[in-house]
């Protein structure tokens, strides 16, 4: 899995994840993803449109980084989740922990609100 960050404003970044968020991928990339989040002073909208698979380890990674942002008074919002990945998110009631928007404009509106 790959990830990239784009600064949309001084207080807002978009993170884009692409590929399979399986155990092997998460194990390889989470240190880098964590370091990137640690270096951000602002909110993060996470584009999951390119993620074709995510299991509990990927969800744990997102929750951990959302918690880091929340402790600084910032938000993480997910968007663009593929339908079958959303089935996993629904099974975990992830929306109770991290807001999930249908698209980027909705994600940005949630962050602004």
């Amino acid at each position: 899995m790959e990830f990239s960050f784009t600064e949309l404003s001084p207080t807002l970044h978009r993170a884009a994840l692409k590929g399979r968020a399986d155990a092997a991928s998460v194990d390889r990339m989470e240190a880098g993803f964590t370091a990137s989040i640690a270096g951000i002073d602002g909110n993060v909208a996470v584009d999951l449109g390119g993620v074709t698979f995510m299991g509990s380890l990927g969800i744990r990674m997102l929750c951990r980084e959302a918690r880091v942002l929340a402790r600084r008074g910032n938000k993480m919002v997910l968007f663009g989740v593929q339908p079958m990945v959303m089935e996993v998110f629904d099974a975990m009631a992830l929306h109770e922990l991290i807001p999930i928007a249908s698209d980027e404009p909705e994600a940005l509106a949630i962050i602004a609100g």
Partner: protein
Amino acid sequence: MDALFTLEVARRYDSLADAQARLGAFLSGAGCDARTMFRVEVVVEELVVNVIQHGVSATIDNQLTLCARVKNGQVQVALEDGGPEFDPLQFVPRPLPRLLEEESAGGNGLRLVRKMADAFSYTRTEAGLNRMELEIRSA
């Protein structure tokens, strides 16, 4: 059609990824729909990750055996490992957290397995292996 798949999986994440690719190719070739394949993938991922993370013993070998059968649109998966005896059916997941601060690792994998599998059973075999059998039915 009654199609069979068997694979030895080393207790490493990269071996799991390879096994998932091979299992996916098998299920696709057997005519499984995408949603069934995804649910099988989730179940296998979570069970094998559990064994990799918790099924540690210096005296066991490092292999798991993954079997899958496709019959009448149903996928039957069996996973055997030689780790410490563990019946996942006896594991009661914590309530789902309502706050980010309450979220922690542990139990989420089995929670997903229970949600994604239509049937789930466990036995400790005479050979001393944990054997989990699951059924995922096509929509």
